[in-house]
């Protein structure tokens, strides 16, 4: 279901890119909305968008919309800054754009020289940017909504010092099986090099866990170390999110409908999410310390993109498995397909969900 929805924006991507690039060279076309932009209030700073999320499908669609929205705004705000002679801002916006994972090759081809020129006009040296994508961009659809990026973000952006070029990167795909009655869906998979150092992943941006219908959506979210996750209350009632999973334990306190709380996850490992008010709610964030990771879909299929060739250990975590499954892989220039990994289904859901002090709660009591 998610797959079918996710394909629709893919078809529209070319249209969006063409429209955005067209507008870049026709300033009059968006002169009206640029009124605020010239004064620094461009809409690109206003993410996340106030779109309702009622289901996992809503969340996926929202992710696509927010990504395209950010792409457009970085493109356009850079152009507006260029036209206003603010080359530093233009360079910052476009460099930020080029650092986004999976940016379309056409955008890259047009914007990269402009970003370099803007940076030169601003009197700086060219920033370190990801290599030019040599193939069609990675799936825009599976990328997340992206957080607001301030004009001063360039200085705080992580350096990208990947040794492998895009041409060296391959894809590992396969299937997870097991997971007991819950099935393998949501399993988190990651690769760690065994023949050298695994690069430290840059924090992901725009990660959201919604509380809706007294459930966590998504139920399982995989992120990289250092990622900030927004917890949002999309219910009409109070919620709380807490975790006793050390060392990533945290507590959001109470927050009402429409409220949100941001938590940064600094250590790798599984984090169980609970609500101190509603004992039936449970979810997971899994933090990986490698850029090569994925989550299995309901059928267990997974795909890890952008993997350099080499020797790896493949790890898999699932909420229903008491142990992490591991196996070694040799990744050649052609990548790997049909990788199969088995996870256990031996871990039961807890009979009693603890409250924030760790005391077990009887589900038939209270609310």
């Amino acid at each position, binding site marked *: 279901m998610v797959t079918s929805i996710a394909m629709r924006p893919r078809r529209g991507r070319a249209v969006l890119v063409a429209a955005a690039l067209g507008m870049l060279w026709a300033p009059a076309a968006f002169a009206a909305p640029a009124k605020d932009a010239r004064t620094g209030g461009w809409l690109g700073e206003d993410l996340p968008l106030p779109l309702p999320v009622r*289901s*996992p499908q809503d*969340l996926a669609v929202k*992710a696509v919309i927010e990504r395209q929205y950010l792409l457009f705004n970085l493109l356009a705000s850079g152009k507006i800054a260029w036209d206003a002679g603010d080359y530093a801002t233009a360079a910052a916006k476009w460099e930020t754009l080029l650092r986004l994972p999976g940016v379309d090759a056409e955008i890259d081809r047009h914007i990269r020289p402009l970003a370099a020129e803007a940076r030169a006009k601003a009197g700086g040296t060219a920033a370190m940017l*990801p290599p030019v994508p040599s193939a069609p961009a990675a799936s825009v659809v599976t990328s*997340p909504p992206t957080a607001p990026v301030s004009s001063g973000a360039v200085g705080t952006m992580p350096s990208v*010092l*990947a040794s492998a070029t895009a041409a060296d*990167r391959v894809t590992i795909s396969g299937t997870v099986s097991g997971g007991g*009655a*819950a*099935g393998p*869906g*949501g399993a988190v998979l990651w690769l760690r090099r065994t023949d050298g*150092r695994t*690069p*430290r*992943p*840059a924090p992901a941006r725009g990660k959201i*866990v919604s509380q809706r*219908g007294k*459930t*966590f*959506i*998504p*139920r*399982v*979210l*995989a992120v*990289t170390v250092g990622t900030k996750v927004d917890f949002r209350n999309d219910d009409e*009632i*109070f919620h709380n999110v807490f975790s006793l999973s*050390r060392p990533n334990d945290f*507590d959001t*306190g*109470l*927050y009402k409908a429409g409220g949100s709380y941001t938590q940064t996850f600094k250590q790798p490992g599984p984090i169980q999410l609970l609500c101190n008010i509603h*004992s039936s*709610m*449970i*979810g997971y964030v899994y933090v990986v310390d490698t*850029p*090569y990771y994925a*989550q299995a879909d*309901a059928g267990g299929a997974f795909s*890890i993109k*952008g993997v350099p060739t080499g020797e790896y250990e493949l790890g898999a975590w699932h909420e229903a498995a008491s142990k992490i499954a591991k196996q070694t892989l040799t990744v050649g220039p052609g990548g790997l397909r049909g990788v199969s990994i088995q996870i256990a289904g031996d871990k039961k859901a*807890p*009979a009693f969900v603890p409250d*924030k*002090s*760790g*005391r*077990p709660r*009887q*589900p*038939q*009591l*209270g*609310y």
Partner: protein
Amino acid sequence: MRRRPPVIVIPVVGVAIVLALPVWVAAPTAWAQALPEIVEEESANEPVGYTPADTAAATASPASTLVLTGYVDVGFVNAQGDGTSFAPGDTRLPADYGVDPFATAVNSRGDAASTASGGRFVNGFLPYSAGVGGRPSFLINTINVDVRFTAPTAPVMVFTRLQLVPRAGGDAGNDLDGDGTRVVAEQAFGRITPFESTELALAVGKFDSVFGIEYLENQANLRTGITPSLIARYTTGQSIGAKLFYRLQIAPLWSALSLNAAATTSGTMVTSLQTPHASLTGVPVGSARLGYELNLPRVQVKAGASGLVGPRNDQADADSLQRAWGVDVRVHWFGLAFSGEYLVLDQDRGAGPKRTGLGQFPLPSAFHVEGFYAQLAYGRDVTLGPLRRATVYARGEQRHARFEGFTPVKVRRLTAGLRLDLWDSLALKGEVLMNREVEGAPTVENDVYATSVVWTW
């Protein structure tokens, strides 16, 4: 007299510092140059997360709206003396009025090691008995099955808790010793939460007490330790009726107010003291607890005040009332858990024989009791093989009780123990109960050493 350091030491230390300073300043740079550069890489993989299509699977009890859970509680216990608190030379009658028969508790149910009075007359102030006397014994305390059904299309939950209590003695038709095997429908109720945006729940059936806090952990797998407190007999009984729970969140203060109120057939005493399954007067007993919660990130404070009023349900006379009030507090602070409760209860004199879960007894005495407990526990998560958590705890308590016309009895108890949680399903517990008769009751050897292995499934 202190010796002064040699004068030469001072310049030597000074020179050493001066020489070491450039090395110290340069060291980080040198280290940074020596270590390979840390590579940070944007990931091409940023999945949006996974949510199962089945919304029921997104709850804490996945894949089904019908959930069966339960536990088996097996113990090994040893009570001093003959397992009772009766003294051989004490000829006062009724025998259970002059001691605390509940003192030799051996399990989470509060069963005494023995209630055998040596043939002396007793008058219905007795717990159920494990029937093991003073012999070190293995014991199957409880075999518990919980069945919970959550309706997929309505805000309704149905819950049943059935317990098999295997015992060695007793007579199914007349079990005044309370040591017979029995099957208990401890809870059976339906609950509705009518408003999605309001924390309001209404329940009808047989359910836990609403008085105080000890009922919250009145099962072997939930209770930190093994045995209940000296006042649990008055507050943790189940009864049949209707119950309301309402909670109001006060977000800016990280706080909440709650009301738990019930109208039931027998109030909150345990079954061995009052029968819960039939109203002998036709008038319900009202009970309620007003609670306050402070839920800070690392500190949780809960306090409450409880009250109860209604006919004592061991009498057919609706004018023989029971009244109780109590206060409670719980504080959880960085792994430390403190809980305490204070209770005062009065029962009017009755008009006829007394009818309890153990049978019928002739004297409907008026009764007054006040008591308290305070427990401190420290738990720490551990990763050591199968060991997941270790908790040490200690509880101090006192009970002062008086039947009208008889000598008041004051007892104290100190309980200390250790709980180890293994994997996610096994708890090993061991504790010692040191009972002391302070006033009114003969001093007897009635300390208890209890262990418990609880398998939760």
